[in-house]
């Protein structure tokens, strides 16, 4: 049973470490299929991750990979891209990794519009450490640190990325793997900072505390809470609180950071700087 997947994974590391039904594996499949569609050279791709369940992805893919410190995947990736702009750099983060510990790095990477692809696997909780609520846990949902319900308002990561200046912003889910694959493909292909948020399931931490014990229940829930962008626009403000829009939100062209940096180098050299 050889498929495209087998060409891009480190087979000796399988079966993967994730819990049964974890969405990380579905996202990993979507990333690999998107890269296969683009026909990229494996040795020209760098996958960077931080800390968390999602960050295990870099251990399974047969690219150049780097597993870094918590929340700092984007700064490391920025360094790699600046050192060698020919590399394709993919950053895989979880919701806590990206929006809490690495929140500042996320908005500044978007502001600079550096040519990276950030894939955020949003399972709405800190799964690895026992189910603490994250900045993306919806209001009213439960976590081990919110046993009576979460009172915080959650981030809308896509709107945050648009406001901060990203070039490409989209949201998919693990229930819709085909759509997620095409969104990731568009994001990889886009010059500039691209963000794809994938709504994922964590049956063990999130599901257990929110009355969805099986992966199947969680996927059904994801199906219920997501609507296409078109349907979303027609909803009343109250209905919008309960739902997530999925699809492509933004795709614009803006000069990316490495291009601008090249120009600065040229300018400095013309003025007689170090050659």
């Amino acid at each position, binding site marked *: *049973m050889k*498929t495209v*997947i087998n060409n891009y*994974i480190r087979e000796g590391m*399988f*079966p*993967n470490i*994730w*819990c*049964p*039904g*974890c*969405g*990380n*594996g*579905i996202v*990993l*499949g*979507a990333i690999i*299929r998107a890269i296969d569609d683009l026909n990229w050279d494996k040795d020209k791709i760098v996958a960077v991750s931080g800390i968390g369940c999602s960050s295990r992805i870099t251990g399974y893919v047969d690219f150049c990979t780097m597993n870094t410190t918590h929340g700092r995947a984007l700064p490391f990736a920025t360094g790699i891209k600046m050192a060698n702009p020919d590399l394709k750099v993919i950053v895989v983060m979880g919701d806590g990794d990206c929006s809490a510990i690495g929140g500042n790095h996320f908005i500044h990477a978007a502001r600079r519009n550096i040519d990276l692809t950030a894939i955020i696997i949003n399972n709405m909780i800190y799964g690895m450490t026992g189910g603490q609520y994250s900045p993306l846990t919806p209001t009213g949902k439960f976590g081990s640190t919110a046993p009576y319900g979460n009172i915080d308002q959650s981030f809308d990561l896509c709107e945050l990325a648009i406001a901060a200046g990203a070039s490409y912003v989209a949201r998919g889910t*693990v*229930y819709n*793997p*085909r759509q997620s*694959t095409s969104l990731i493909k568009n994001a990889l292909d886009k010059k500039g900072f691209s963000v794809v948020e994938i709504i994922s399931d964590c049956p063990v931490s999130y599901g257990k505390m929110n009355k969805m014990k*099986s*992966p*199947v229940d969680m*996927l059904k829930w994801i199906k219920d809470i997501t609507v296409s962008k078109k349907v979303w626009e027609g909803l009343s403000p109250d209905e919008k609180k309960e739902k997530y829009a999925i699809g492509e939100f933004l795709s614009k062209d803006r000069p990316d950071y490495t291009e601008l940096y090249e120009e600065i180098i040229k300018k400095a050299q013309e003025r007689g700087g170090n050659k």
Partner: protein
Amino acid sequence: MKQKKLLEVYQNNSVKISVRREWCKSCGICIEFCPKDVLVPDDQQKPIPENIDACIKCGLCELRCPDFAITVEGVEEKDE
């Protein structure tokens, strides 16, 4: 009872469904979301394509499998 192999291949004249049992973690996603109810769970909750003739090769089980444990391939019909 017959011991199942690590890789079980089921085939009819139009489709070949392979289940890599050593990677499967019995999450049940492929079985629940198959639009044609092709798959049924065995005693370990791993999928068996009992209803393989109903398969339309949509590939959703393969795309949604978090463990890359199931694949669906079309079988080319041979001219006779």
